[in-house]
């Protein structure tokens, strides 16, 4: 029986893998809400999901891959394969050599232009190989190349990449320690539950699972799901699907480089869009897989999850009804767009209502409309930049647009797609675009700092090219079959593709260059040491720390959620100025931007009597010298602290 299970799994790994994963996410989320995560619930969820996949999982299909040979026949094909593999491994080794615990803004700072040229060369040869050779090893070398593409931040930033993952890792550790987090929230559950489940089943530390989860799953699943979807759902010939799957890398998708709930839903959206035509002509189990992916996205982050679930159910409904007239198609598309728009806007308005605020904010509408228009103006044009950067940044701006336009044309011109499919894609993307405008206009989220209010609208903007990506690849495949006949034309196409991939690789990670210089800093060793230093210096006394959000987040991960205190007004505050709603956060902003006065200090003392006040400033903060002068004038003392963070105390 076990043999049969693995045999059937091997027969059709991709769809079964996606099906199993989505089941695990949905079941573990239900378990999280119902009883909380524990070793027992994790085992039960795993057994239940495996049982379902065994008895009711996607039906086996003919595995065409198994009939192919492993390696190219020609000797030069084998040597080119070896060339790509050795180049990728060499680039991996260079990345590994740049691993660092010091504060960095960009992973690219240790690398020369030749590093990117080498990647472009490997990408060019890979494209040539995938076009000319028909062997199973082409898929494995594609996965190695995709792994190199998405693992830069994972390798270089030894202590983690970004700000959000630090908070989520702390929350996940809390879930593992306590089962769940109260009050229960309708978001992030999918990620917290699955990380806890993996921790219980493998005993791997939570931060490690969190860091590897998304990059590793992207690398494993995106080429496989793209290949499966393009062949089975978008009806592209087998070899062409392998070729265009590599071209996914020309679209920069920075959110797939680190784990966060929304980023996971971006991965689920990619799976969903590659498989969604199966809603209309696949088997019942393939339909179920598409709906399950949407549900997994919903329980992880509803911003994209809710539209995906709505469109999936509308798709199932439309399967029973064929649309014949153009008028009816337009009407249905607009209706679906309205549904998607109201689901996103309604969800965010409801969130405000639950927080005790009016659902919509109706002020400064003109300014907000201008802000919306600003989303479409490339900001690198504001500064003078040299031509290589103009080419690079223009390309990065244009590629999503090209993906959308080509995808839209293919969607409506290619007869292979049903009218139902077109209605769903048009309704979904139009709905997301309109919601982006309305969210910018009417939504101001409590608990989110002012300069991140546009974040949700920008996320929606970035999601639109994803929904046209498979259609774009279908267009490229059609172009390739017609144009790529002579070797010289193939070579030129591969060189352009390789250059685009190298550019996309560079643009996928934060950059500091002539056109872009606003990348944030990442957690460093000195942040952890500073948190420990303050804890030691306080020696059990009650204290607060006014600092920037990164150091506060590191403190949260080091000390946990329970380091809180109650101020004179009876409000519960975290010791570090982390949450935008806390009064300490406002004082920290005054410190950071040099505006702290004696009156502020007195107000803080009245609010928090008998509490020691620490101020921690990063050495790299642009006002560090000015702040030091102000703090010393106000009577603060600088204490010995790890290099990289200056710590002051008001006793």
């Amino acid at each position: 029986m076990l043999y049969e299970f693995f045999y059937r799994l091997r027969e059709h790994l991709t769809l079964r893998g996606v099906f199993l994963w989505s089941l695990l996410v949905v079941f573990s989320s239900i378990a999280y809400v119902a009883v909380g995560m524990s070793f027992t619930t994790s085992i039960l969820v795993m057994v239940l999901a495996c049982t379902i996949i065994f008895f009711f999982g996607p039906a086996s299909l003919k595995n065409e891959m198994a009939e192919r040979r492993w390696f190219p026949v020609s000797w030069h094909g084998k040597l080119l394969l070896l060339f790509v593999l050795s180049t990728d491994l060499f680039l991996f080794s260079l990345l590994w050599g740049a691993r660092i615990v010091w504060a960095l803004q960009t992973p690219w700072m240790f690398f020369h232009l030749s590093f990117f040229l080498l990647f472009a060369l490997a990408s060019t040869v890979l494209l040539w190989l995938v076009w000319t050779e028909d062997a199973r090893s082409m898929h494995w070398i594609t996965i190695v190349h995709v792994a190199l593409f998405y693992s830069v931040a994972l390798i270089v930033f030894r202590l983690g990449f970004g700000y959000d993952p630090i908070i989520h890792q702390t929350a996940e550790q809390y879930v593992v320690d306590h089962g769940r987090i109260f009050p229960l929230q309708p978001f992030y559950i999918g990620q917290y539950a699955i990380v806890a489940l993996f921790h219980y089943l493998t005993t791997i530390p939570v931060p490690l699972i969190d860091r590897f989860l998304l990059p590793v799953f992207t690398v494993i699943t995106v080429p496989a799901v793209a290949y499966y979807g393009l062949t089975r759902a978008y009806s592209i010939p087998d070899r062409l699907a392998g070729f265009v799957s590599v071209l996914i890398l020309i679209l920069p998708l920075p959110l797939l480089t680190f784990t966060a709930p929304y980023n996971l839903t971006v991965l689920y959206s990619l799976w969903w869009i590659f498989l969604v035509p199966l809603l209309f002509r696949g088997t019942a189990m393939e339909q179920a897989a598409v709906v399950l992916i949407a549900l997994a996205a919903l329980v992880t982050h509803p911003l994209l999850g809710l539209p995906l679930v709505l469109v999936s159910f509308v798709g199932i409904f439309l399967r029973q009804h064929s649309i014949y007239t153009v008028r009816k198609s337009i009407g249905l598309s607009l209706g679906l767009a309205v549904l998607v728009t109201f689901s996103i806007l309604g969800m965010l308005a409801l969130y405000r209502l639950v927080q005790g605020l009016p659902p919509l904010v109706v002020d400064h509408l003109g300014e907000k409309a201008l802000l919306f228009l600003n989303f479409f103006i490339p900001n690198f044009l504001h500064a003078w930049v040299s031509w290589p950067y103009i080419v690079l940044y223009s390309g990065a701006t244009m590629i999503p647009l090209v993906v959308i336009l080509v995808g839209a044309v293919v969607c409506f011109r290619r007869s292979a797609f049903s009218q139902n499919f077109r209605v769903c894609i048009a309704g979904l993307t139009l709905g997301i675009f309109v919601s982006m405008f309305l969210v910018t206009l009417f939504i101001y989220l409590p608990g989110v700092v002012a300069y991140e209010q546009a974040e949700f609208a920008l996320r929606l903007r970035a999601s639109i090219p994803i929904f046209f990506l498979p259609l774009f690849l279908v267009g490229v495949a059609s172009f390739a079959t017609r144009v790529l006949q002579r070797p010289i034309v193939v070579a030129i196409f591969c060189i352009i593709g390789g250059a685009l991939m190298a550019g996309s690789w560079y643009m996928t990670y934060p950059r500091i260059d002539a056109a872009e210089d606003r990348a944030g800093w990442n957690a460093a060793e000195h942040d952890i040491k500073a948190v420990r230093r303050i804890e030691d210096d306080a020696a059990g006394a009650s204290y607060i720390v006014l600092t920037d959000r990164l150091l506060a987040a590191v403190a949260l991960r080091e000390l946990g959620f329970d380091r809180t205190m109650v101020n004179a007004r009876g409000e519960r505050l975290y010791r570090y100025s982390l949450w935008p709603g806390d009064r300490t956060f406002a004082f920290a902003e005054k410190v950071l931007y040099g505006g702290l006065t004696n009156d502020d200090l007195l107000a803080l003392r009245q609010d928090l009597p008998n509490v020691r006040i620490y101020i921690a400033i990063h050495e790299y903060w642009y006002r560090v010298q000015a702040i030091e002068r102000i703090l010393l004038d106000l009577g603060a003392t600088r204490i010995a602290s790890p290099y990289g963070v200056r710590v002051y105390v008001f006793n």
Partner: protein
Amino acid sequence: MQQWFQKISPLLILALLVLIGVGLGVIAWKTQQEKTQALMKLAPMVSDSKKWPATKEASKKAAPNRVFRTLEQLVSEFLMTASNTRPSSSTSNNQKNDAGTLPETYPTAQPSVPGLTPGYQLPN
């Protein structure tokens, strides 16, 4: 002759690819080594920090900020090699904003040193 060339051409292209690959690889490896080692040399200072001056007067006489100057230099070199131009003046901000815009209510940095740490003044 033409037949002979057709036979040999894949080998020539492959040889050319390997040559270019090795050349680029050597340059990439050497620069990566130089840049990481420049920072790693300072690692003992980073990980085993010394006591810092606790008074205003002593603070003014603090040792040069070597780590950040090295980082600045590395970034400047990267920019110089990539574009053969000086980097633009920076307004970087560790309150990361994915929108890529600075909050309007906050003052914009007046850069004093081009490169990584705008507003950072060279020590006396």
